[in-house]
């Protein structure tokens, strides 16, 4: 599904290297968690995979379903089935969530050669998905993320993910700013989307999210590299010991 080899990335503006030779393989249906101390490069990884401006890839490669991911435009990556749930979802005042989601869905469908969904059909679909995820459908009438609470923003990300039906989703610190109830709802939403084809990369600082979204593999990212990989037990160990060992190593 996703194959990252020796990836080096720096910030365009100041040339500071953030990813320093990251290698990671993700197979269909797997859930990988990336954990690590602040500043290790966790969010950079998500941004680079999604194609955000402002980074320069100096070395290495990323192949997604056999395609050179780094050669694709941001929206082409989205059309190919890559989804990034933002740590800080962006507000777009005056643009109704429903209209936003319909535009996204239809653009993606068009790129995949599927017919456009009418306003009515889309409304039905969006309502059904919201109900499945236990999300209040009133959210669809509000402006995109405007005035949303932290929990609402993250739920809206999960709703978008459900509608866009990605093959590979990156969740960037989806647990940040959530209380335990909101966390559970978001995690249930993610779990509902798990199947043997869809893969997830869960980026988090804390182990508690992994109580709800059970990963198949856990990796520790420190100073721009994966320094350790293991099963769910690794997350438990990190919870106990913290990142002290890795911070020193960096």
């Amino acid at each position, binding site marked *: 599904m996703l194959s990252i080899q020796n990836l080096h990335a720096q910030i365009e*503006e100041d040339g500071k290297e953030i990813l320093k030779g990251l290698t990671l393989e993700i197979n269909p249906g797997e859930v990988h968690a990336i954990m690590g101390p602040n500043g290790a490069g966790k969010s950079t990884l998500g941004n680079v995979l999604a194609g955000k401006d402002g980074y320069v890839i100096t070395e290495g490669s990323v192949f997604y379903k056999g395609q050179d991911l780094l050669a694709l435009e941001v929206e082409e*990556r989205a059309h190919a089935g890559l989804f990034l749930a933002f740590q800080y979802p962006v507000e777009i005042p*005056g643009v109704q969530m429903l209209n936003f989601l319909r535009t*996204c869905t239809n653009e993606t469908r068009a790129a995949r050669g599927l017919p456009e969904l009418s306003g009515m059909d889309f409304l039905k679909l969006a309502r059904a998905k919201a109900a499945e995820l236990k999300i209040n459908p009133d959210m669809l009438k509000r402006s995109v993320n405007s005035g949303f609470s932290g929990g609402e923003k993250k739920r809206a990300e999960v709703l978008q993910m459900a509608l866009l039906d990605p093959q590979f989703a990156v969740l960037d610190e989806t647990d940040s700013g959530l209380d335990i109830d909101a966390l559970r709802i978001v995690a249930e939403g993610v779990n509902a989307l798990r199947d043997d084809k869809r893969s997830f990369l869960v980026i988090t600082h804390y182990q508690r999210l992994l109580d709800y979204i059970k990963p198949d593999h856990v990796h520790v990212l420190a100073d721009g590299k994966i320094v350790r990989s293991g099963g769910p037990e690794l997350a438990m160990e990190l919870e106990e010991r913290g990142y002290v060992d890795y911070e020193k190593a960096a």
Partner: protein
Amino acid sequence: MAATADTVERVKKISVETYKYGFETEIEMDRIPKGLNEDIVRMISAKKDEPEWLLQWRLEAYRRWTQMEEPDWAKVSFPKIDYNDYYYYAAPKSMGDKPKSLDEVDPKLLDTYKRLGIPLDEQERLAGVAVDAVFDSVSVATTFKHKLEEVGVIFMPISEAVAKHPELVRKYLGTVVPTTDNYFAALNSAVFTDGSFVYVPKGVRCPMELSTYFRINAQETGQFERTLIVCDDDAYVSYLEGCTAPMRDENQLHAAVVELVAMDNSEIKYSTVQNWYPGDENGKGGIYNFVTKRAQCRGVNSKVSWTQVETGSAVTWKYPSCILQGDGSQGEFYSIAITNNLQQADTGTKMVHVGKNTRSRIISKGISAGRSDQTYRGLVKMLPNAKNARNFTQCDSLLIGDRCGAHTVPYIEVANPSAAVEHEATTSKVSDDQLFYCRQRGMNEEKALALIVNGFVKEVLQELPMEFAVEAQALVEISLEGSVG
């Protein structure tokens, strides 16, 4: 930021749809000589077979104009205009015989309007919209005239109204915008050529949208239209004007005057979709748009709404205003102004509260892109008798890229202690984060920008008559193509 610059460069390469109304109609024109003097004014008046009083009115305006100075307080700059270097009257030769019906109108003219999306054939026209089509200095056709006559609504070119309804024209012309009101109004009064006249009699709700479509075609020609709309007691009318011009390297002059009179309990809704040629991406060519638009709410509880979508012109100088004279009268101003490339716009409104319990509402949405510069300039004035008058103003500016400018200049004068004025203003920028977010969800950059901008202007678009809201929305998108930053 490097990322922004990169985005701008990348988007520039995306093919930009050029101004699609920029074609020229090749048609034989009847023109009077270039230049401006009393003889020219007399010639225009003679071309129109005008009565003596109107000629004198024009001459008086011309004499006053020669003593006035071009205003220089607006935040726009352009080379000095040589008013003697323009033609002040240009009409298709075929219009000389005054065609009686559409069948007699030169097919080239009908074709021009068809290409602009304004078919004048009544069968093809949007049901429920009557159109007056003005080509350079003359009106070429007015549709649905007879249907309107049945209910007593007069809708015709102002030159025709001067002949057919002189008493009405004389009673109202120049009473809202006096000939000497300002430099451009004086110029217009001296040389105005055509425009629309609307009179809605007492108690009549005009059964369809009225619309005038202005087209400047001839080279080095100024268009000076004059529109006068009178809504008598308890009457209602909704009126829309649209404008386009061919792409030309030299600047063309457009100085219009629009006067609205609203009597007791009447309502006038005036919408503009202004899409004059804005010049090319280096600022060459384009229309100078110097317009005086004013409404007088003379009657009690009368109401006037100005809604404008301003996307064209190289330079815009325009402040549609309301004089709220009648007690309980209301004025509204909803505006979307978009400037791209090197366009300059200084636009806003004036709300002058004279009567008691008068109310006004101003919603202005300015979008600047490219290297353009835009100013909102608004006056809210509460006179001593304006007891309990209310105003609400909201001015929002949206910047796209980092080389454009937005300025807000509100003037507030309150002379009655019971009056209340509220002013809100925001300035925001389309951020890289917003664009990235939309693209990550599958939209391309242009689509993302259109969506963000539409969200920003939605409040105003909703005020447009439905038939035109869709067109206006598309226009907003086209105007910003190639401007992502």
